[in-house]
């Protein structure tokens, strides 16, 4: 009897018991409040023009229509660049950024985690730790000067490289690689493997959850990044969908309201789907995420 009582008290219960009810009672209403604005946005995106400007405002659309989405895909910018081009740019930029970042992050984190015997790696890890507190917007001016000096204005590289300097990715990855047994790596060295082989054959397969997490974080930041399009890109055909829709929403007119709503749904869906598919991996990465 006493034993059973203890079990109910610990976290992560396997069975439902009455004393969990109070948590549901708080969490469910709160979760609904949190999600309501998002639900409203969905409803807004499917509203016909009449409902968008109805008074009193309509919360959940009565005659859902795809018109807004259709209009969204027929849009084009002031210089005649079609919306689909911006979308394609974003997809390519986000895709390349994620792939490049995964490789660079895993490689760097591997060295930081398993090559602690070199002074430079220890020193760099603590520097990266400090950089977790870095606020990128604070240094847009020096960044701009540097990018101009390097001749990177108006290049695809400027979309991608600033995003890869992501201290939190290195940090999460390193904490995870710390748990890969050293004996396994030593055995591979004895068999003649070099660092590159160890990285490809041992580290990458064993850290898939952390790789998935880094991929999600990178995708989210690359997908919604506007800094490059705002400051470093001058030609319209190279800008991103996020930038374009942001600009469109500033000129919030009667005609664009539903379209912008549809656009914001379009931008949100990939984030949501990727997170739902990968959430168990994210959680497993996060259990390693403590700053020690």
């Amino acid at each position, binding site marked *: 009897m006493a034993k059973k009582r203890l079990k109910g008290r610990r976290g992560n219960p396997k069975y439902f018991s009455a004393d969990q009810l109070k948590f549901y009672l708080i969490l469910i209403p709160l979760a609904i409040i949190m999600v309501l604005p998002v639900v409203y*946005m969905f409803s807004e995106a499917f509203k016909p023009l009449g409902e968008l400007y109805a008074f009193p405002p309509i919360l959940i659309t009565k005659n859902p229509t795809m018109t807004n989405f259709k209009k969204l895909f027929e849009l084009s910018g002031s210089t005649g660049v079609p919306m689909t081009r911006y979308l394609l740019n974003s997809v390519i930029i986000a895709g390349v950024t994620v792939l490049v970042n995964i490789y660079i992050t895993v490689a760097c984190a591997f060295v930081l985690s398993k090559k602690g015997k070199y002074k430079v790696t220890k020193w760099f890890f603590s520097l990266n730790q400090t*950089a977790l*507190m870095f606020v990128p*917007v*604070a240094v*847009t001016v020096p960044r701009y000067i540097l990018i101009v000096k390097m001749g990177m204005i108006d290049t695809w590289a400027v979309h991608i490289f600033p995003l890869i*300097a992501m201290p939190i990715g290195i940090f999460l990855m390193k904490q995870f690689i710390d748990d890969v047994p050293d004996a396994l790596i030593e055995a591979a060295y004895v068999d003649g493997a070099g660092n590159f082989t160890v990285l490809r054959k041992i580290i990458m397969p064993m850290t898939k959850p952390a790789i998935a997490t880094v991929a999600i974080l990178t995708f989210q930041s690359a997908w919604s990044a506007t800094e490059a399009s705002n400051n470093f890109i001058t030609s319209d055909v190279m800008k991103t969908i996020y930038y374009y829709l942001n600009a469109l929403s500033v000129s919030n007119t009667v005609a664009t309201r539903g379209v912008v709503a549809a656009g914001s749904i379009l931008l949100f869906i990939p984030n949501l789907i990727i997170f739902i598919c990968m959430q168990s991996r994210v959680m497993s990465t*996060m259990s390693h995420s*403590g700053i020690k």
Partner: protein
Amino acid sequence: MKMRKKYNSDLWTAVALLAPYLLLFSLFIAIPVIIAIGLSFTYFDGVNFPSFVGLSNYISLLTQDEIFLKYVIPNTFKYALIVGPGGCVLSFILAWMVTQIQAVPRTILTLCLYMPSMVGSLMVQIVWVTIFSGDQRGLLNSFLLKNDFIDVPIDFLQDPKYLMTIIIIVALWQSMGIGFLAMIAGILNVNDELYEAAYVDGMRNRFQEVIYITIPSMKPQMLFGAVMAIVNAFSTGWLGPALSGSNPTPEYSGNVILNHIEDYAYTRYEMGYAAAISVVLLLMVAFFSKVAGALFSEKK
């Protein structure tokens, strides 16, 4: 001799693996910070070569900049102190609650709570502007009017009285981010035997469990969550202009330190002065992260 050669090749491949990140880190984080520090001691209009002015940027920032002292600093602290520690505490309480229920409902509720942090700035802007819109079509105004709480719609987003509060509400709505996920994982990872031992030793309720077992066992995740919350609180400057539709916001009521940087850098082209503000911002974030570190670091 052979050993030595092997050691060398290991070192060189290690450097090769480290190099790409090191390069990007230097280019986009380290060097910009150094340049910002350097520029903060100059007058620089973005065109002519910066001229050295010593500490005068800092001195005028801390003694003469009325907007900075009267609006920006109080706003920033109010915002960051509520959204930083507040968001962190909220994250912990909610993380703890979701770990007290079964796995499947936990996953669903976690997703709901996490969702606002990944909707993106565009959706945040549209949906909250619609809710707080100043005319009768705004959701809140329409609700208040219908129930006779008010007679005339309130212009929430243009009224200095309300703007900051609204910004804080939206920021808290978005505060269950990556730190929240780390805390859930941290709580689930606490060794069960610790709780059992504590109950044998006379622990009686859930509250004691949290104070004496859960929090001490997950200090690393708490620290991570706290640092993420602080950084987030100081780096979201876009909410004020996004919600009110102007930078500066009405009577500077929603201006935080980031908006002040943008104002000087891109509107007035006083890049040296803007750099000095950036340095102050980075120092503030570092200070508060240190405080969090002192609170949650494991005693050695």
